[in-house]
């Protein structure tokens, strides 16, 4: 699957899709490929605050637990509650139905500048 060029990426393999001050966050295909089958996702409560690049949850495959780091700081305004019972959606399409949280970003423009575009992210994962 091609890396969508409508969003930005962190080196922790998360993506951020900006729609004004509301930013949707998920993990990349590279992340799901290395995780394998996702069987559990632990997400924060709506209303919780998260700083850019800080841990906001956990994602578990059959074999391993990984921390989730938010590519964007702000207040969590929505979480993908489908993942409580259907965590396999993260594998099905990590860039759409497998989204994780929506964050209201305080200073979206300056945070955006600290993230990579799709080409830079592809270059990073090609090295790994």
């Amino acid at each position: 699957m091609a890396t969508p060029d409508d969003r930005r990426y962190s080196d922790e393999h998360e993506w951020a899709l900006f729609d004004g001050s509301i930013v949707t966050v998920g993990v990349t295909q590279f992340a799901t490929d290395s995780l394998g089958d996702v069987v559990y996702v632990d997400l924060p409560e709506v209303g919780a605050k998260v700083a850019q690049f800080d841990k906001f949850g956990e994602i578990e495959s059959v074999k391993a637990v990984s921390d989730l780091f938010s590519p964007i700081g702000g207040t969590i305004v929505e979480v993908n509650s489908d993942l409580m019972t259907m965590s396999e959606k993260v594998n099905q399409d990590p860039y759409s139905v497998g989204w994780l949280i929506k964050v209201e970003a305080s200073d979206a423009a300056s945070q955006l500048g600290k993230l990579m575009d799709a080409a830079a992210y592809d270059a990073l994962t090609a090295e790994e």
Partner: protein
Amino acid sequence: MRDEQSLKKTPLHLIHVAGGARMVEFGGWDMPVQYPDGILSEVRSVRSNAGMFDVSHMARFQFVGPEAVAFLDRMLAADVAGLRQGRARYHVICNEQGGIIDDAIVYRVTEDQCLLVANAGNADAVKEFLIPAAQQNGGVFFADLSDDVAMIAVQGPNAVEIVDRLCPLPASSVRPFRLRRGEVAGIPSRIARTGYTGEDGFEIMPPADRATDLWRALEAEGVVPAGLGARDVLRLEAGLMLHGNDMMVENNPYEAGLERFTYIETPGYIAGEALKAIRDAGTPRVITGFRMVGRGIPRHGLAVINDGKEVGIVTSGTHSPTLDDNIGMGYVDRDLSNEGTRFEIDVRGRLVEAEVVPLPFYSRKRS
């Protein structure tokens, strides 16, 4: 980083790599953890059809000679003398203090010949325990067959029917926990009706140089290649212990729930006195199966908590795709080990409720 150069490779290594398997280090071996379809899909194949695992990394030790059976009965908690030819027994191998060195299957091949299949990660420890003693006994001859003989486990509800198509014996004539020689896909093999998944099936031992031929023949019959990831889920669902995870040399077979597989009555058995003392004293903790009531997956090493106090430790845990539940096992204070008892698992700082359930978690329907 995985230092691939220093890892041992089974005769099926190239077939795994060519099949797109993800390779990991396991017990000193470079092994497939999963094939491209993934662990959940592989588990489903084994539970609903038939899957196969390369288990050539496990150790295969042969003991031959007039003293072989008596020797093994002095060293293993297995009652080999009571095993008729062609039969197998799962048992523990304990040191003189009663600590578990490994769990293994011993096959009585003939009157004076036995085959011992031990875990890959414990091959050296088992050798160190058995070989010096064997060398002092003129009536026992030891051979390590691990490099010359491969081993493929074919497991699942359709495994017997599929192997029968390739085996004129037929393979179905080999009853559970028995071993016979026969040809599978024209390849002379030892055929054992044993496994580690909770399903019916075989562990087939062809010569190492024919292992890829056997693998391809099984694949052509629809058997799905599976890796160590699926194997770990399957064995845990079936309540089977993994040495190195669920028991260590610090553990004894009574707390590990393996009393049924610990025969200590052979006169002169090396761990007999120690094990009798441990059994009679009783163990404060016992291996206990549980399911998660709250959201969370138990993992190896997490603490079991009751009333704010640590009352046990998780040794294995996973999401069970077959049961669609999160399950685990671990050592828990004996008074909290009864079915229905509730306690909490400390999931990285979050206390999640769990409930004791009987082992195994999963049993296949028997026809």
